[in-house]
């Protein structure tokens, strides 16, 4: 069994670099997408154990991506961890209503990200 594969959908390159690095170190395979359309296309074509999804994505935003995932029978069970900004309670409620599996509030700690991803993606090699 290979490593669990995680997709990070985030448009800030520096955040992507750090997230990729810490998830790699925690034993995950990491793939990245920098806009919503690309993220949706990627999860439709490839098997992922979890998606880390930013809300403020260019083009198709995080809500739209999540909505499309939840209405797609094949993807409905994919764990999606949503990145929201501190103080944006409305975003969080909205993502909760659409079916987010977990939330991480920016600015987050790296340990928090690893803990959520490990729990939802079934740990290393847990696919």
């Amino acid at each position, binding site marked *: 069994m290979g490593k669990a594969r995680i997709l990070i959908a985030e448009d*800030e390159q*520096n*955040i992507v*670099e*750090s*997230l990729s*690095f*810490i998830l790699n*170190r925690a034993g995950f395979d990491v793939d990245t997408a920098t806009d919503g359309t690309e993220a949706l296309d990627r999860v439709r074509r490839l098997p992922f154990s979890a998606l880390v999804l930013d809300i*403020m994505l260019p083009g198709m935003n995080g809500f739209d991506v999540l909505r499309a995932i939840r209405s797609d029978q094949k993807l409905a069970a994919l764990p999606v961890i949503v990145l929201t*900004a*501190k103080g944006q*309670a*409305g975003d969080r409620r909205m993502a909760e209503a659409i079916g987010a599996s977990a939330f991480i509030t*920016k*600015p*987050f*700690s*790296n*340990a928090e990200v690893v803990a959520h991803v490990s729990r939802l993606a079934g740990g290393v090699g847990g696919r």
Partner: protein
Amino acid sequence: MARNLTGLKIRALRRDRKLAQGELARRVGISASYLNLIERDKRAIAGGLVDRIAAELGVERSDLDGVAERRVVASLEEIAADPELASGGGHPGPAEDLVGRNPAWAALVLRLYQAWLDQNQAVLALADRLNRDPFLGDSVHRMLTNVTSIRAAAEILEADDALTPADRRRFRSIVATDAQKLSGTAHALLEFFNSAHMRVRSATPAEHVDAFILATDNYFPELEAVAADFLAADRTPDAAKEKLPDASSRFPPEATVAERFETRRFRLLKQALQPVVAEPIQALVQSHAALVSEESRTLATAALAAYAAAAVLMPYEHFLEAAERWRYDLDALSRLFGVSYEQAAHRLATLHRPGAEGVRFAFMRTDASGYVTKRLPLPRLPLPRYGNACPLWAIHAAFQNPGVSARGFGELPSGEQFLFFARAVEKRPSSAAAPRHLLSVMLACAAEDAGRVVYGDGIDLGKAMAPIGTICRLCPREACGHRQEAPLIT
């Protein structure tokens, strides 16, 4: 039931003049015990006696009859009923006692309350400004992004001893570049807060006009009198007397200049009234304490000119009689008086002549985006100026079916119940070349008055009371499915 204040006023003035009860009684030809009963409001006081007492105390009769004081009492009762201030402490007792014994303190309490309301509005305005300003929203987002990036990279640098030199350089560089971006954003924010346009006034000119309208009860006897004289002299200009023209000329084809017949007539009438109303209007706006700025006086002048024109088109007694007879049916009233739906609705919100009052209505008008373009609040029904009204109000539903009344009962978190009815009307005749200009006009009255109003008919009051708010930010109904924003105070 409001108590009579005459007795309390007599006692206060008598004491002020260091006059014994027996002495005043002797001078006006009544017994001391009778005066005692009058002063304690245990006996009504006849007109002739009021005049004699007023003469002995050296005041005008109008100083004793208590009209102004009754207004103060009503305002104090509103304070006592304000759910944010009452907080279960029980009613503080009759406001008449305070007004009668210590009018200066009563006035001070009212000023304090008004200042508190103003400050609340200022806080709301500021919160709204901060929430809605795209520059601020964008800056905060950028700062959060930079901080997130810096924190993640810094944690990697701190925690991971086994970093390759290349990774170490990479994450150091991320910290450095994002720290630089962060300071740039912080700098721009500081500039923004320092710039002059960020100043928030505690009250806008429109709010001063609101205060003016509330203080005067939106009823202006001076202008009603001018309107009555104007009608008696039949000085209405021919153009404004025009009967409804036939359909072909009613909607001229030029889309941009088209004006409704009723709007045109109203405008012409305002012009014709100008020479006779200018002076009384100036006297009203110059003397009123609420109108503190030139801008607020200009706004109030325009509102009063419209008031006078409405008083000519819909003379008080006739309009009130028709309104009661047709149970406030705005279609019937606009047909009878040849005015627009909105003009009739606005006039209904002015029927406050003491002794000849109609149902009390709040009036509100918004465009399709919810922007409030006109408002006349009721003391217990605050109408929003900042932020949109509760989406459950009829004023929004009216846009779904223009020309048709949307109506319903609603209960505010304070427990106050109201009947709301609204209609979206076209501001000017529409044409293919221009988008339809719809405005929703809403009236609201206390639920207990709904029986007098045709718009309350056929609704089962027991079942149809919807839990509503004023605006999301001030509404404590946390579980409401229509909530868009978290409440400011929980």
